């Protein structure tokens, strides 16, 4: 038999799939992984990698700078402290979000791929959750990793690595907690805005405005109005909140003369504010996908 068919190409016909079907959880996982890869342009053309990868590199620069400084300085120096890191890269975070969030959710609306997702083994809210998780993870790459690099770098540069780790280990849960909270907040804001329109340009501008304009407006109100009341405006500005929650996580106080110092909220107020805002964003996102017609 074998020799007779050797060298002959023939159609083996249709094969039934008899293997396992992993259902909804696997579907959500697959969408999450696909979305996360898409954020960084993995599996896409070079041009879709440049933006997100470039911004990620910029977010790493302060950490690498601190690392280099610590390694050549004869004494322990900490020019860049963990509680100040997010403030330093907040504009990068906003731009990163404004670049990737519209691709993450707007693309499926623009190309109408959404109807294919909604007709597969997941529910509408699963789609929203997978996208949210993907963006939070992507934001963690540029918030958590630089912090960890700094921590390890400082430990290596210290006179004694283990002494440093023993003294400073309490920073690790703070690093993780602050990065998760801040990433959820930024991702939530970005996705809620980006999911409103298939038009990329609109959502990019909208997201930038949500971060940068609110920061300017809240800051201005705080400067000109009665501080006892106007300080609450700062709680509506993501940048101020990001800065404030870091203070709480790292048990630090704001530099004298800054708006945060003058507002005189306790750090925990920013952390709670951030958590509530992130939850609100997630609720709005789920609502959006419950209503959207694919």
């Amino acid at each position, binding site marked *: 038999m074998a020799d007779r068919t050797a060298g002959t190409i023939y159609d083996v016909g*249709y094969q039934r799939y008899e293997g396992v*079907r992993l259902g909804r959880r696997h579907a959500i996982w*697959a969408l999450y992984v696909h979305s996360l890869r898409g954020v960084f342009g993995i*599996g896409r053309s070079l041009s879709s990698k440049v933006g997100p990868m470039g911004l990620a590199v910029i977010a790493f620069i302060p950490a690498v700078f601190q690392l280099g400084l610590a390694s050549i300085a004869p004494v322990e120096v900490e020019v860049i402290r963990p509680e100040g890191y997010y403030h330093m890269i907040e504009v990068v975070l906003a731009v990163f979000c404004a670049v990737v969030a519209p691709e993450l959710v707007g693309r499926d609306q623009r190309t109408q*791929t959404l*109807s294919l997702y*909604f*007709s597969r083994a997941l529910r509408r809210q699963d789609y929203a959750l997978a996208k949210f998780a993907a963006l939070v993870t992507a934001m963690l790459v540029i918030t958590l990793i630089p912090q960890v690099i700094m921590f390890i770098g400082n430990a290596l540069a210290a006179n004694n690595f283990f002494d440093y780790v023993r003294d400073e280990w309490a920073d690790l849960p703070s690093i993780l907690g602050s990065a998760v909270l801040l990433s959820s907040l930024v991702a939530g804001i970005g996705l809620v805005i980006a999911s409103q329109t298939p038009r990329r340009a609109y959502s990019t501008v909208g997201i930038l405005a949500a971060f940068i304009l609110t920061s300017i407006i809240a800051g201005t109100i705080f400067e000109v109005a009665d501080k006892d009341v106007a300080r609450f405006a700062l709680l509506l500005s993501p940048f101020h909140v990001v800065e404030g929650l870091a203070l709480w996580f790292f048990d630090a106080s704001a530099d004298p003369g800054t708006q945060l110092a003058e507002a005189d909220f306790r750090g925990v107020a920013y952390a709670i504010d951030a958590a509530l805002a992130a939850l609100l964003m997630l609720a709005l996102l789920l609502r959006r996908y419950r209503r959207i017609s694919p």
Partner: protein
Amino acid sequence: MTLIRTTSLTKRYAKITALEALDVELEPGIIGLVGANGAGKSTLIKLLLGLLEPTSGSGEVMGLDVFRQGPELRQFVGYMPEHDCLPTDVSATEFVAHMAQVSGLPRGAARERTAETLRHVGLFEARYREMRGYSTGMKQRVKLAQALVHDPRLMLLDEPTNGLDPEGRDEMLRLIRRIGTEFGIAIILSSHLLSEIERVCDHLIEIEDGRLVRSVPMTELTAPTRVLSVEVDGDGDRLADRLREQGVAVRTSGRFLLVQKEDDALLDVIRDSVVDLGLGLVRLEQGRRRLEELFQSQPTLEEEEAPRG
């Protein structure tokens, strides 16, 4: 097993009723869904997929509740929408494999079946290229592939030949027919072209203004008619005259004579007449009803002859 069962399924929008108390029960097969634009075809398909929520009523596909057991059910359902639905910046291979995973297939199986499925739909070298440069025909193939890749038990195809040239249309219909018969997958095919439904389907449901007009096996609709069409090599009029002399109702239609067949003896009459006149018999066949005729007023031979006389 019942493929689809809907019970007073209704979908209303603010001003219009897209589907009104639809009750259908369908067995697996290749089912044609016909109706004018806006009759409710797409609405029905979207309701069966759980893409739309019904205003009232319920639907079951393969024994699973469409609205409560959606994810579980949709592991076994494939959907090819009428509109564009493909991202532009990924390859067909990557996209279809991803869609297979979102239908519940493990990664490895998804990749294997993607290669196989793209081969079945006839997409070869192009499958590693970004889809932005694809022709309409290639896009339609990918759309079909993503609906087939997870080996569904039911495929819902909404106007799958839209935008295709006649050749592409032919190929798509052949493929769909093959999926339904050879691959053994139940199909709901919506089309506004009756000829397509006639070619591919073995059951037909018709919707008009959101209501079910009919649900019948195709064999009933395209049953043989009692009209014979005869073509001869030579002067057809002589044969027509000869047949009329013998009391047979005849009318001519181009090169053909159409003869009302009352019983099988007529076949002998025609044969003998042809021989007597020394003509050559080229064709003698029983006519079949065509769907188009059915959706018009079903003209019979007599009715059509009347205005001529």
